[in-house]
């Protein structure tokens, strides 16, 4: 048995992991979530904005990170739209354009079509190349980096939403949903730090979350770390606005079931691997000491 386990083909582990994820995806178990303080701070920052505030959402990710970051973008877009805030969407990633469409503007145009008008209540200014230099530029002048919007190709000044918003310092809140470089760290370094009046909340991937915790609460008001943070945010949104307690709006919460079973499997495999390792060490060696 021990010999079999030590020589176990890793593809059986892949199969076990597939089943550990696939079965909960099919059964869709619901797990309770409640927001931790770091997530609640993000929720409160949006909730407590004065009506009709201007919120800039920078969706700095691509399809490879969308499963993790898409749910938080959608939840925060819904939250802002529910409160009637004006939304400006941008991205620092070339592949971020479709993410803005899928995770933000599509939601506005289907769920808030009656109250949200393009150019008046929301605007897509698209991809801003230049990494951190782009942030440095829009801190003082938005139209230097984004001469026209991404949808209609019109100068930003013609849209009512940009009246009184010439640069980042005149935005009430920045929401940075970032998968890496450039992302939330660069927003902290080049916007929140040199200009403390610029308020930023973040939503980040699991990979980058541990390295961004030190910025909270000084340079970042709060942060949604990985899919867990998104699930907590969805739970908070559903609690405050029961219309969004429905499963169809809670993709992150739905993904916590597979997380649980996959983590249990991984813990089991780690324990099993260690047990096998120590049993192997204690076993008398054959064929040695010649």
């Amino acid at each position, binding site marked *: 048995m021990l010999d079999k386990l030590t020589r176990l083909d890793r593809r059986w582990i892949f199969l076990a992991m597939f089943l550990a994820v696939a079965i909960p995806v099919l059964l869709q178990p619901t797990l309770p979530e409640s927001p931790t303080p770091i997530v609640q701070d993000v929720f409160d920052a949006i909730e407590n904005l004065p009506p009709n505030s201007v919120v800039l959402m920078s969706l700095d990710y691509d399809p490879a990170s969308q499963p993790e970051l898409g749910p938080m973008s959608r939840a925060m877009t819904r939250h802002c739209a529910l409160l009637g805030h004006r939304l400006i969407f941008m991205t620092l990633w070339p592949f971020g354009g479709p993410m803005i469409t899928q995770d933000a503007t599509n939601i506005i145009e289907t769920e808030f079509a009656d109250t949200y008008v393009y150019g008046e209540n929301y605007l897509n200014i698209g991809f801003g190349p230049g990494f951190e230099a782009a942030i440095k530029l829009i801190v003082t002048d938005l139209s230097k980096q984004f001469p026209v919007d991404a949808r209609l190709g019109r100068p930003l000044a013609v849209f009512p939403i940009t009246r009184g918003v010439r640069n980042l310092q005149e935005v009430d809140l920045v929401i940075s949903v970032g998968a890496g470089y450039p992302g939330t760290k660069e927003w902290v370094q080049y916007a929140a730090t040199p200009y403390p009046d610029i308020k930023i909340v973040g939503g980040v991937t699991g*990979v980058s979350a541990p390295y961004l915790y030190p910025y909270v609460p000084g340079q970042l008001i709060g942060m949604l770390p990985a899919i867990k943070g998104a699930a907590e945010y969805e739970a908070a949104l559903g609690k405050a606005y029961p219309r969004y307690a429905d499963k169809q709006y809670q993709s992150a919460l739905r993904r916590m079931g597979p997380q649980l079973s996959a983590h249990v499997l991984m813990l089991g495999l780690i324990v099993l691997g260690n047990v096998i390792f120590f049993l192997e060490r204690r076993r008398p060696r054959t064929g040695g000491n010649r």
Partner: protein
Amino acid sequence: MKREHVVVTVLFSLMAIALIGWVAAHTMMRGSFPGLRYMERTGAVAVFAPEVAVWTVTKDEDGTTTRRWADPTTGQKVLSPLQAEHASEAELAEAVVRTPQKEWSLVRDARRGAPNNPMVSFSLPRTLGVWLAALLTLCIFSFLYRDNPFYKVAESFVVGASAAYYMVVGFWTMLVPNLFGRLWPEGIREYFLPEHSIDRDLWYLVPLILGVMLLWRLAPAGAWIARWPLAFIIGITAGLRLIGFLQADFALQIQASIMPLAVYDAGDFSFWMSLRNITILLGTLACLTYFFFSIEHKGFVGRTARVGIWVLMITFGAGFAYTVMGRITLLTRRIEFLFDDWLWIIGG
């Protein structure tokens, strides 16, 4: 044939039989074939020039807000031809139909075609898209068994599509509006962006020249010319990043680590907050000691450095665990796509 090949072949055959059975059962019982895409038109969006029509907002007694395009001179409601298709007879009676600058219909996925619903129609591009995405997903997954030509093809697709997409986005979002639009605004207005209204700015000749110099490295001779713009980029980036890290990660992180070791909350001693602050302070000092190599790591310094290693290991462990969480989420989404978007197994 090796035993493992037999096992995998049997496993895949069973999965294929289950898949075919599912598709057949679904088709017979529900009258629709999984994997086909139907779209439901839910509304229309039209963009009129400001002088032709503007939005009017009306608020009903129950508080619901309705927005309609209206002619600013007559006040008459304006509909685009596409909006007119969706409008009721009463709406059409009091509106005028005009051609907008841009128009598109809002659509959402529909699970299956409804014969009595004229708004639902079969979508060939989306059906092909879903099937292509599903097959490419399976091709990538096949690498878990072993490297194979299907995986190579899918990998090449990703690389090629990404490179092409990056180039197109760069051209349309950077070069056209931001560079050529500032150097040759009339031409850009004429050929690309009719409403482009930015004044000429000849300072943008500098990035144009630097860009051309950068491309010079592709030429057979004079590759050294590309070093000048590269030096410019490196210098600017180094300067920007130095300032960014000095302010955000050095100065302000020192400030953030200066915290009370005994925390009182409304006059009461808070044990857990105090413990948290002490842990942060001691952890920071221990890690810094580990990276301080001017003193040999012996005695007290050595023991402190060892604590620093433990703190670093815990940080790396947390990072690894978060990474695992992210990767499981990616797998979850792909399986959701296969089961829900492609096969309709979830939610029927």
